């Protein structure tokens, strides 16, 4: 960074003195030649403020919906909450601006990874449906929806797919693998960013048993995001998984 090392001889940017390859500091003036100089680190919480605000605002809305009597169990209530949380994601999406554009780049998307993601998502949702059946938990908890919620709408399957497959696949991925991921990655390693985002993705659904599969799911999408620097695999995987859940629930209710 600070000295050109491509040619044999390089010069210190501090004093213009000659530096040998392998030098870590300039011998004449003591200026650091290291690529990674220790910067005065910003306070951890001032970096994390956007993430914490997003998390606790969204958690409050979901908590009020799920744990209090403010909203009833109707489709209208669900739609209001769903739209409110979506708008919050959109607000943070706009604030993140250019930072998220490269994550939507279609260049470099590999069909083999897409197909593998789809297959693994379908297998996982089958496995989870067996486990959930065994421990007697509604599979819909994974997508934050009560069974039969869409029953009274004009087109139950359409609304179910729209609200529990399309919406989460796009907006949960943009949040947890998009701006939250970018924000947390500013102050810690990519691997721990994957762990932290997977964990908060798990708890924000407010279903403690479902965390058994929500956290691994979040880890999978997080690793895809960290490895390939794109949101597409996560979006495709998330959509496929949730679609599988909806279709299984639909088949079970119909049958």
């Amino acid at each position: 960074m600070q000295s050109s090392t491509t040619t044999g001889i390089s010069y210190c940017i501090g004093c213009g003195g000659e530096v040998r390859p392998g030098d870590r500091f300039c011998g004449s003036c003591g200026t650091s030649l290291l690529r990674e100089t220790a910067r005065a680190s910003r306070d951890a919480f001032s970096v994390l403020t956007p993430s914490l605000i997003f998390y606790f605002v969204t958690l409050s809305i979901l908590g009020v919906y799920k744990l209090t009597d403010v909203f009833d169990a109707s489709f209208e209530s669900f739609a209001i909450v769903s739209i409110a949380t979506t708008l919050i994601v959109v607000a943070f999406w706009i604030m993140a601006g250019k930072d998220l554009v490269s994550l939507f780049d279609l260049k470099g998307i590999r069909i083999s990874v897409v197909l593998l993601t789809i297959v693994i998502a379908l297998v996982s949702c089958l496995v989870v449906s067996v486990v959930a059946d065994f421990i007697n938990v509604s599979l819909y908890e994974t997508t934050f929806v009560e069974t039969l919620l869409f029953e009274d709408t004009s087109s139950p399957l359409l609304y179910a797919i729209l609200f529990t497959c399309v919406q989460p696949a796009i907006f949960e991925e943009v949040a947890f693998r998009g701006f939250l991921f970018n924000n947390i990655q500013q102050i810690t390693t990519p691997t721990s960013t994957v762990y932290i985002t997977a964990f908060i993705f798990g708890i924000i659904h407010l279903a403690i048993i479902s965390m058994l599969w929500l956290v691994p799911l979040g880890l999978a999408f997080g690793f895809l995001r960290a490895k390939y620097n794109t949101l597409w695999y996560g979006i495709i995987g998330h959509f496929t998984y949730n679609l599988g859940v909806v279709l299984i629930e639909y088949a079970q209710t119909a049958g």
Partner: protein
Amino acid sequence: MDAVSQDAFAVCEHCNAINGPLNRYCSQCSFPIRGSEAEQASFRLTVSSRRRFLDDARQKIKSARIVILVLAGLFFAFGLFVGFTMDDFPSMVVSVVLCFIYLLLAAWCNQNPFGALLTAFIIYLTLILINTLVDPATLFHGIIIKIVIIGWLIKGIRSAHEAKGYLKELQNLKAVPVDAE
């Protein structure tokens, strides 16, 4: 003759690197090998102050880790209490799961204190928020203990972040403490 050979090469007394005749500063650790006594003392002061900051930060991380372990213990005790005296088995399962999660975080804290403490902090605030939504009066139950726990976790998170910076700085100055991996 003797003076010339001393001028030709200088072994850095801070990191033992061999420096050329023109170097005023060590090319490996920036110690002022041919600087004044005051300059050398100021270099040593920088190193020792960074070491002290790092030790301080590590102490706070340790305290925060103990807070996590105490919380794990409290969840376990609470789980057993509601399970066996009130027959509230769902609450018992949740408490035991939380105890388990906090034990995992305490273990992770040794590898990555920042990630572990941040996750523990978020979970703790989430629990307070959820309990407050279900029953607003619970917010004030043990409010002082809650504030102390949150304060300790916040200090730990800040320190874990700062410790990485101090360690990096000491590594650059070739002055890594012996106990650092």
